[in-house]
């Protein structure tokens, strides 16, 4: 029993174990990299380095992050192969693309 709990805690605490992680940064109103290719199952972490808030919105409405203040992050697992175009809902000229491969 104890072992099981310990194991669950371990798994909860390290959900990314064995999974890929990638990063998109926001600097000067630009998502970098503008296009990011990842394998299905990858967690992408968006981090805002600007002095103004930004958010991350799927152009097709699939997801929307909260507003990210300076140095705040938004993480999401991309598990379905395909192309996702996203933008900043506050500054919609800011756009990026994620290509999820099988």
């Amino acid at each position, binding site marked *: 029993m104890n072992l099981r709990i310990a194991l669950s805690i371990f798994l909860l605490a390290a959900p990314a174990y064995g999974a890929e992680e990638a990063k998109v940064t926001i600097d000067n109103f630009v998502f970098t990299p503008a296009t990011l290719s990842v394998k299905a199952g990858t967690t992408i972490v968006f981090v805002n380095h600007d*002095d103004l808030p930004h958010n991350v919105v799927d152009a097709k409405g699939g997801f929307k992050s909260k507003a990210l203040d300076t140095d705040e992050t938004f993480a999401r697992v991309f598990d379905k192969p395909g192309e996702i*175009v996203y933008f900043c809902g506050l500054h*919609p000229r800011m756009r990026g693309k994620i290509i999820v491969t099988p």
Partner: protein
Amino acid sequence: MFDANATRRQALKCMAWAGSGLLWTIDGGVPKASLVGSAQAAVGGFSMVQISDSHIGFNKPANPDPTATFMEALRKIDALPKKPDFIIHTGDITHLSKPKEFDDFDQLARTAKLDFHYVPGEHDVIDERPGEAFLERYGKNSNGKGWYSFDHAGVHFVGLVNVHDLKAGGMGNLGVEQLAWLADDLKIKTASTPIVVFTHIPLWIIAADWGWGTQDGAQALKLLSRFASVTVLNGHIHQLMQKVEGHVTFHSARSTAFPQPAPGTAPSPGPKLVPAEQLRSFLGVSSVTLTRGKTPIAITDTTLEG
């Protein structure tokens, strides 16, 4: 002092950088802007003040204390030779739409002892259910996501909301529902009624690559085209900018919090860091004076300096 030839451009440039409040004078239906400190009282008309982009909650180097500069803006308004009838706030009241930011703003705004009319900026609608906090506080008599109109001393004021449902790659957005409301709202007004429109993002396109414009703004301007005097006030770009096109005067007010760069002078429209001792020359308020049957609406922009 000035080289007469070089100066118009320079003066405009300086204007674009000095922060201020705008005093609008509406005179014979044509608005004139002037610096708050130098504005003259309108005869037989009235004046109102526009403030914008107070960004309460912002705490970065460009202005670690926007509450203090907002208070200074209120003091400027209080010191006007003629008491304005009301204040219009053209959005970005808060930085992150947090209840405490709205509370802090409201607490200070009450000290002005003047009515405020608001439209939201994009920073005021980033709560979990976009715009809910704003509407609860300021949207009592508004339609849809916060648009409304009212009449004051023969002038028709229209508050438009262009910060919701922004589309990927786009700019500000009014949307079909609001445009239909606007058409209906203006229908009963005679062409000689002076119109003052106020909104957050410029209705005219100032810098498309920075999103400084409104996608469907031209449709609103078309609805306004039959009126003899139209004044469009906005914020969002944290600098003075003015344009007259036919009978439409466009005016962008300064922020009371921090300046932003002029289009094309920086890699992004983020806050412009200026030496602390210069900050107040980049911030300000605008005063609008309307004098019936005589001269145009006057807009006076005043910085917080001095």
